[in-house]
């Protein structure tokens, strides 16, 4: 029974938002292929989490106290074992630090094709799978042939695929997977997890991002960006110039040597939009640019732009959104 298997990433007992997009795309592909759709959750005390997942045929739980924190060695063994048992046609992940770590490891272990950060998965009339993913930092797209080997391991770029909508009367069957003890003979031990980002919303998962660049003139002025982000429930980003100047740590950096983001809305404040910055954010659905230089390259890719002083415009924008929020 080949099927589609979704890896539902959880950290600290919380499922990632990306799961809804995986369920949406997984449902669409499962219908087109006439296959079952299953979800795997790995972690500790998962009963409650499993109850939050609907619209699938089966939920596999690898539930063990020793799996509470992510471990590439233990998690990859669980996945490889389950793949061997099920031989699914597709294994879907959300693109994340975890899947970028697990995907290649499982692919090498099981000799299966791996394609990270996909932006499109289509079936041709023979039900062959065509995958598209950006390469050269988004300067080109590559269409890939993943051959006939099963499963194809794909990670899906956030905010690109339509989330699962809908009612589902289907009650998933829950199956507990046996967790063998020998997978905990670890050569990599997690000592500690240290938060590096002060803002509440993470860049790579954020629906809205407000980013600041050189135009902010100093670290203290990032509070303008943070105030706007707070009102919008957005994440805060920074350009390379702002990071290199030491105004924000590297974990905030959007662009070629920072993070690639794909939010619904990206608001660039005082960012000129060098090609390396564009590489990290040009797949945002809507781009807004605020810059006093009308010739800044960011305006060439922005959906909406205001040429003007960000020190005047950003606070006005914060006020206006505040009003809108209070009014609604």
């Amino acid at each position: 029974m080949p099927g589609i298997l979704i890896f539902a990433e959880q950290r600290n007992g919380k499922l990632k938002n990306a799961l809804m997009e995986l369920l949406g795309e997984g449902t669409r592909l499962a219908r087109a292929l006439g296959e079952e759709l299953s979800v795997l959750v790995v972690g500790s005390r998962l009963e409650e989490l499993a109850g939050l997942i609907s619209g699938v045929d089966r939920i596999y739980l690898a539930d063990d106290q020793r799996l509470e924190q992510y471990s590439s060695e233990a998690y990859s063994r669980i996945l490889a074992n389950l793949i061997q048992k099920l031989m699914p046609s597709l294994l879907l992940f959300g693109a994340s630090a975890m899947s970028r770590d697990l995907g290649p490891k499982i692919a090498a272990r099981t000799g299966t094709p791996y394609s990270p950060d996909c932006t499109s998965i289509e079936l041709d009339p023979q039900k062959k799978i065509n995958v598209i993913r950006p390469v050269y930092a988004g300067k080109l797209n590559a269409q890939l042939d993943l051959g006939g080997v099963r499963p194809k391991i794909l990670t899906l770029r956030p905010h690109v695929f339509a989330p699962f909508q809908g009612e589902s009367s289907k009650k998933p069957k829950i199956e507990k997977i046996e967790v063998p003890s020998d997978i905990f003979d670890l050569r990599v031990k997690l000592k500690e997890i240290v938060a590096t980002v002060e803002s509440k919303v993470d860049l790579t998962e954020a629906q809205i991002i407000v980013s600041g660049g050189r135009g902010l003139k100093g670290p203290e002025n990032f509070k303008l960006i943070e105030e706007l982000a707070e009102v919008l429930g957005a994440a805060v980003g920074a350009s390379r110039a702002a990071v290199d100047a030491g105004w924000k740590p590297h974990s905030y950096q959007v662009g070629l040597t920072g993070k690639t983001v794909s939010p619904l809305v990206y608001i660039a404040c005082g960012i000129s939009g060098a090609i390396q910055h564009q590489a990290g954010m040009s797949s945002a659905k809507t781009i807004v640019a605020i810059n006093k230089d009308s010739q800044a390259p960011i305006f060439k890719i922005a959906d909406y732009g205001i040429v003007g002083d960000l020190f005047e415009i950003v606070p006005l924008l914060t006020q206006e959104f505040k009003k809108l929020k209070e009014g609604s």
Partner: protein
Amino acid sequence: MNILVCLKQVPSSESKIKVGKDPTGIDTSDLTYVVNPYDEYGVEEAIRIKERLGSVDITVLSVGPATAAETLRVALAMGVDRAVLLYDPLFSNSDSLGIARIIAAYVHMTPFDLIFFGKQAIDDDMGAVGIMVAELLRLPHGAVVNRLEISPDQKSMIAHRQIEGADEILEILLPAVITCQKGLNEPRYPSLPGIMKAKSKPLAEINHEGLKLDPKTVGLSAALVKIVKLFPPKTRTTGKIIEGPPAEAVKELVQHLSEATGLAGA
């Protein structure tokens, strides 16, 4: 301690990238090539470890083409001891797993205590080869590492690895594979004496026979992932520049955004 650093030669990040006549590849005329920036962090880290510990031998490696030798010379000039180019026409169009098999075959012959890769190459953006090599060799790995400390007994290391909104601090037993992220260090420029010295350092070339590698496991025919075609993404067109006094422009922008995106719960 023996350290291996794996390098890829890539078009510089400023390059204009166009689809080639053969649409499975890019147009390589007028391209400037550089060491993949994330791989440079690996070279620098290896040299710093040698500077701290003394008895360390550093090898850099690249999997063809022949022009990748230029990239290896850069690393030799930065201060590594020797370079190896794994080149064979049979290797061309290997996928990530094929490249990983080629590198793993070399490490089988010449074991290392520590192997560095960049966290990804800036051309295919796959970020797969380093982790795949680790898995093929059954070595532990730490990916996307921005801080590294080798223990005094040189049997383990502490690696800080970047995840969403946090760093995982890992203790990893050696031998192991590390993939490097920005922040790990600031790579040095090759010095003039370094460039002169590099000329006399060994640069070996090895083909599939030298690696005792079954040619059926690499190259295009073995690839599980094949490029059908490359094509440019839809270009973003210049949108609306909102004119007028700031207060009014902002009002208009907010209206557009809430209509277009449902922003702020409109």
